């Protein structure tokens, strides 16, 4: 969060707002201390129900989405690091993403990082009924947990994880609310390993201009 405050200071006069949303079932209790420490002047919101992840089909944090002045998505969900704190784990350099962000703030629609409509649709459309149902199971798990029934919430979290195995949010949030080893028979580290390592956990943003800039695909 302090990293984003520095970016915000640089870019806020160029008509940028940062809206950072904490995906934390325990809300202010868990996310609050981080926000207080970072003391951001951008908009920092609390999302106990993971509403934003649900609406945008996000599967991990940190995830960034670029939205233009008309409320249209310009780049959809992608790994959004502001600094290199996790570089040892992720192997991801934050600079290309931040440079791309600056480019879009400067050039808007003319930025080569604006994603084509076709690519956007491809990335945004979710028709898998399992993924759609997983969101409902996870949300039910959260409601049940919040009403004081951790034990009863676990089967719903497990069902969400089974239906949408790509969601790290479903795993990590559930593990954080309980004892992962005891209740889920696994750990976060084991799960990352099983999935194929940190490159799968944090897929690098696709910032090659060809991937984003052209509205039509090259002729075969």
């Amino acid at each position, binding site marked *: 969060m302090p990293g984003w405050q520095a970016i915000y200071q640089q870019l806020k006069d160029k008509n940028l707002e940062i809206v950072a949303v904490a995906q934390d079932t325990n809300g202010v209790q868990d996310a609050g201390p981080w926000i207080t420490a970072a003391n951001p002047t951008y908009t920092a919101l609390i999302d106990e129900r993971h509403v*934003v992840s649900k609406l945008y089909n996000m599967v991990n944090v940190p995830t960034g989405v670029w*939205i233009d*002045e008309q409320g249209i998505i310009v780049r959809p969900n992608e790994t959004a690091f502001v600094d290199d704190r996790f570089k040892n784990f992720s192997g991801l350099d934050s600079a290309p993403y931040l440079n791309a962000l600056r480019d879009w703030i400067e050039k808007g629609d003319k930025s080569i990082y604006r994603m084509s409509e076709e690519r956007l649709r491809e990335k945004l459309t979710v028709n898998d009924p399992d993924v759609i149902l997983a969101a409902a199971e996870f949300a039910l798990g959260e409601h049940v947990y919040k009403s004081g029934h951790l034990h009863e919430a676990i089967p719903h979290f497990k069902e969400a994880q089974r239906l949408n195995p790509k969601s790290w949010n479903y795993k990590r949030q559930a593990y954080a609310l309980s004892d992962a080893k005891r209740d889920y028979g696994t750990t976060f580290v084991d799960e990352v390993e099983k999935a194929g390592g940190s490159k799968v956990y944090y897929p690098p943003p696709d910032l090659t201009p060809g991937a984003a800039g052209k509205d039509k695909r090259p002729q075969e």
Partner: protein
Amino acid sequence: MKWRMSIGVCTLFLLMACVSARGEETHARIIYDDHATEVSSANVDAGQLWITTVDLKRATGFALKPQGVCRDELCFPLPKSREQEFVRNSSGKTWFDLMAFARLVHQPVAHDEALATWYFGLRSDQRQGLSSREAPDFTLPDMNGKIHSLSDFRGKKVLLLTWASW
């Protein structure tokens, strides 16, 4: 005498069949648009959740109208030939099967039997934002409880970020 007895037995059987077909009247907790409502008389049966139209309005904001199931501008017509799958009248009330409606509008439902809780997820109309490229709007509080909507920032570029403490 014999006749009367068999009629009585028959009636009893019919009554039992009727009761079992209707399921039992129980309490239900319905979570709709992430808002929980307690319903004191629901009829639960395999894949069905019948509530009164009064409770329907209370739990979901939807009302039964001649043109369909409506809330403000939003209206879902019920297929005429299958109307009895959605609506029925008994004990002086109109009942509505919220599960049949969920299937009609392609809405996922998660259910906890022991806690008698139903969670209704995003209907297909609420999931359409993404295929139209329009950023889905949301309204959430900040740390001090002040409410903000994504649409408040229309006219600005927005970098929407999610993060978590875990």
